């Protein structure tokens, strides 16, 4: 029962988060059929409109070097209605980020969900429809 609820809750959360990353015109640059998980450290958070940007340092497994990824999120307006704050992600935070990668293959993607030390950021908005 608990597992079912958790699965349902996380599915709902994912669906709503995906919607929060409302496909702005620019989101056509991302491959929404693909998902990728990045494990790394936050370098910088740009808590701005029209979209937040999260710069993440990720270790390239092949070369061992740290590579910077640019992750585009939704608007702070939408995210703050889902429990995010400007300070939810900070430089230095260890994160696991799930993204839709850039179609052109460069180091970027659109933010689907993120957790810091295993704790997800944000919660579903009030008001179902």
């Amino acid at each position, binding site marked *: 029962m608990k597992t079912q609820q958790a699965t349902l809750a996380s599915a709902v959360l994912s669906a709503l988060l995906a919607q929060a990353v409302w496909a702005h015109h620019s989101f056509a640059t991302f491959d929404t059929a693909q998902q990728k998980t990045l494990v790394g450290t936050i370098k910088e958070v740009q*808590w701005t409109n029209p979209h937040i940007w999260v710069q993440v340092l990720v270790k390239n497994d092949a070369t061992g070097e740290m590579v910077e990824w640019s992750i585009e999120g939704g608007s*702070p307006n939408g995210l703050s209605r889902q429990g995010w*704050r*400007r*300070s939810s992600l900070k430089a230095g935070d260890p994160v696991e980020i799930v993204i839709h990668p850039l179609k052109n293959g460069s180091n970027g993607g659109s933010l689907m969900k993120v957790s810091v030390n295993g704790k997800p950021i944000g919660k579903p908005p009030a008001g179902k429809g």
Partner: protein
Amino acid sequence: MRNTGGLLRTLRTLRARATRALPAPGAPEAPRTLGALVLAALLLAAAPAMAGSGPPDLTGVWSIVGHTSTLKTIEGSLPPLNAAARTLYEQHLAAAARGDRSFDGVTRCLPPGLPRLMLMNEPFEILQRQRVIYFVHQLNRLPRRAYLGEQLPEDPDPLYLGFSVAHWQGDVLVIESSGFREGTLLDDAGLPHSDALHLTERYQLGKDGRTLHARFKIEDPKTYTHSWNAQAEYVRRPGYEIPEEVCADQLASKLRQNGKD
């Protein structure tokens, strides 16, 4: 103390407010106005129980009289910058003298912050409602809402225009604001402020109903050695309809003209 003039003023205000609350429809307007008058009469009958004669209506377009690029205190002097702020201010002055206004986010279409937005040389519109006072500016269509009867948030994520709450003190509209992001300026010349800025605005309609007297109190212990006051005057612009102003478009045109793209 109630007097005839006060009662008449109350009746006019109540009637105006009652009819305003019900926007003009097509045919059913006459019964609505009658209903509003009945309501006004009933409220007037209860008038002795009411304090004061009701706030004035500031709805309309206003523009500043005597815009200045250099904000002074009411006493006419440079605001009391602390040492670090003074250094920063002088850097701004020097940069501006060189033609470099990159310190000023307004040149990149960012909001001017407050109170500077109220001191720009562009008209603004006040939409006065019962729970919210809206300021809508010609400058890049920027809106500001002051929520009547509320308290400022305790720990907000700071914004360019902060958070504003308002109340009426008799005929004076008092607005308190805080939660400002750093980086905006208090005037065109480059007076700085910090995220500790607490602004109090007082607006009073002149007796002729066509001027608006404003007083600004700036409290920012990280930037100024003590709080200080400034003032401004606005005049009504009846018939002026604020045109669409899109800063990003103006900026793009300017960049194209300068040969960059």
